[in-house]
């Protein structure tokens, strides 16, 4: 299985850049917010890439770009080696699909389950009866057939997420993007959905991008992990390496931010200070420097490049060794 075709990544972001203009009020000039800063990611075939970072770090922008819903200001998104911007609608839809975080908002409340799952087929394969495929996909995701005529409002969160997954997979895409698919669910249901995704990944040979801030889930699912901070990739590594020995102080803070099971232990100290990430206050140097406990003069002076830290391990930090 090492033909030439397998070397082409299933999904690739090449220096993807997206800027937004943000109004600062009536009389002040609009500021420019860089939501994606030359973000490069590679998702190999059959692999699962975890994408983590706090709210506002550009994860959702990255997801929109991967779906081809966002015109980029620079760089490109490639699916199977072809630029998504130059791709026909039908091909794009067959190659990449998405499961959203909140199944209460990702399913049109006015449509029945059977309709929701059949929709992609109806749009792209007119003339054929979607019925059998819909039924098969619903069975595959473990959704009870007797509820196929129900409306989303009549289903539980877990059932809804199963419908969302069936809808995303009914076109048999190569790449499935999961945008925090478990964080809106009850803890007991999260495990079911994750196991379902694992099973489907194996059966259908999916390549997956798994966006989350639930690190335990990422550790369980992903092969490699990319950590994002303010639109930049600050660290990328195989999942074991990242969780065993994170090199970037931000990754370390993220890993340290898990609540301990003992309530008496209090909140974990992160050493990040009280400031939150401010995408508009960008200096010339490392974006993380204002919050970084290790920041030195050199960090603030000039942009920090990604540097190799080991096999397949990249980190954007001058002081990666200092920790």
């Amino acid at each position, binding site marked *: 299985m090492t033909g030439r075709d397998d070397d082409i990544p299933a999904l690739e972001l090449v220096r993807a850049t997206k800027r937004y203009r943000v109004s600062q009020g009536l009389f002040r000039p609009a500021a420019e917010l860089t939501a994606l800063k030359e973000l490069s990611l590679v998702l190999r075939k059959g692999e699962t890439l975890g994408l983590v970072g706090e709210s506002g770090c550009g994860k959702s922008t990255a997801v*929109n770009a991967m*779906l081809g*819903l966002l015109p980029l200001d620079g760089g490109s998104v490639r699916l199977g080696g072809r630029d998504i911007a130059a791709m026909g*609608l*039908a091909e*794009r*839809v067959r190659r*990449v*699909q*998405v499961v*959203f*975080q*909140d199944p209460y*908002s*990702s*399913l*049109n*409340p*006015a*449509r029945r389950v059977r309709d929701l799952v059949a*929709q*992609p087929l109806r*749009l*792209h394969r007119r003339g054929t009866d979607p019925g059998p495929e819909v039924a098969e996909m619903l069975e595959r995701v473990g959704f009870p057939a*007797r*509820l*196929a*005529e*129900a*409306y989303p*409002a*009549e289903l539980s969160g877990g059932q809804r997420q199963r419908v*969302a997954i069936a*809808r995303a997979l009914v*076109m048999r895409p190569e790449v499935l993007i999961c945008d925090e698919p478990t964080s809106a669910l009850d803890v007991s249901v999260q495990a079911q959905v994750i196991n379902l995704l694992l099973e489907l990944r194996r059966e259908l040979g999916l390549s997956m991008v798994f966006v989350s801030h639930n690190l335990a889930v990422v550790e369980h699912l992903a092969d490699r992990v990319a950590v994002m901070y303010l639109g930049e990739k600050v660290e990328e590594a195989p999942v074991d390496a990242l969780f065993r020995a994170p090199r970037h102080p931000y990754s370390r803070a993220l890993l340290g931010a898990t609540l301990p099971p003992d309530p008496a232990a209090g909140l974990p100290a992160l050493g990040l200070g009280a400031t939150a990430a401010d995408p508009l206050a960008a200096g010339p140097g490392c974006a993380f420097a204002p919050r970084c406990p290790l920041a030195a003069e050199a960090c603030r002076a000039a942009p920090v490049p990604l540097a190799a830290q080991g096999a397949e391990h990249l980190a954007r930090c001058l002081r990666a060794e200092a920790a």
Partner: protein
Amino acid sequence: MAAPAYRRPLLYRVLGNTGVTLGGLVLLAAVAMALFAPWLAPQDPYAQDLTARVLPPFWHDRADPAHLLGTDHLGRDYLSRLIYGARVSLAVGLGVILVSGTIGITLGLAAGYFGGTVDMIVSFVVTTRLSLPIVLVALAAVALAGASLSTLIAVLGLLLWDRFAVVSRAAAQSLRSRDFVKGMRAIGAGHLRILFLELLPNMRGALIVVMTLEVANAILLEAALSFLGLGVRAPMASWGLMIAEGRENILFDPWLIALPGGLLCALVLAVNLLGDGLRDLTGGKAK
């Protein structure tokens, strides 16, 4: 159909709602009256008989059994005219919301969904429309174009779309940020499909309410304009026109006004009851 057991069949839910049942029955009666007017009306509504002017209805001593609800000032059978009058009211109500609903919902959906410049333009148009006094503009337009049923429907339709626009704009704004809209984009659906096939069905409840309000509004405006002599033209029978024609006799023959006025009132009330009930019925599901 394997509907979940806890959702009662539609018929039961409709019959359990007094507003829908009552309003629906009255409206159904009015529609039947309008559709079958030539068969229901006992006499020709336009036939004048100056020897039998202003006859009282059946409960009166002087009543003529040939004219169950009496005659008007030209001796025309009042019952027949009332039956034919339902046609005008319903045609205006239906015609006006078809025109105004199409305009308002299209503008509102576009404004709420696209936002930005589109929203600014639509909001400006809505504000402009709201600054026009309906009756005055309708008077001027009807006076210019000449009074007729189709002019009336067109003019009112072009004036009464603002509520449709405002309501559908607000609904589209709250819906567009939901993930299912992005999901539809991800499966390759175009904006028009998303607007009319995905967003619109979620606004049913709110739009049905607006629709009934506007039907009632249009029916009343038709009556008012006809009363002022700028609605449908005599000798056509319209409830508003009949009230106008009866006003000289208001002191001695008050039924000339009470009958069409009562029917108008009942029809508007029925439409409002129906809308209210329908909102309750559909509201729960669209949550």
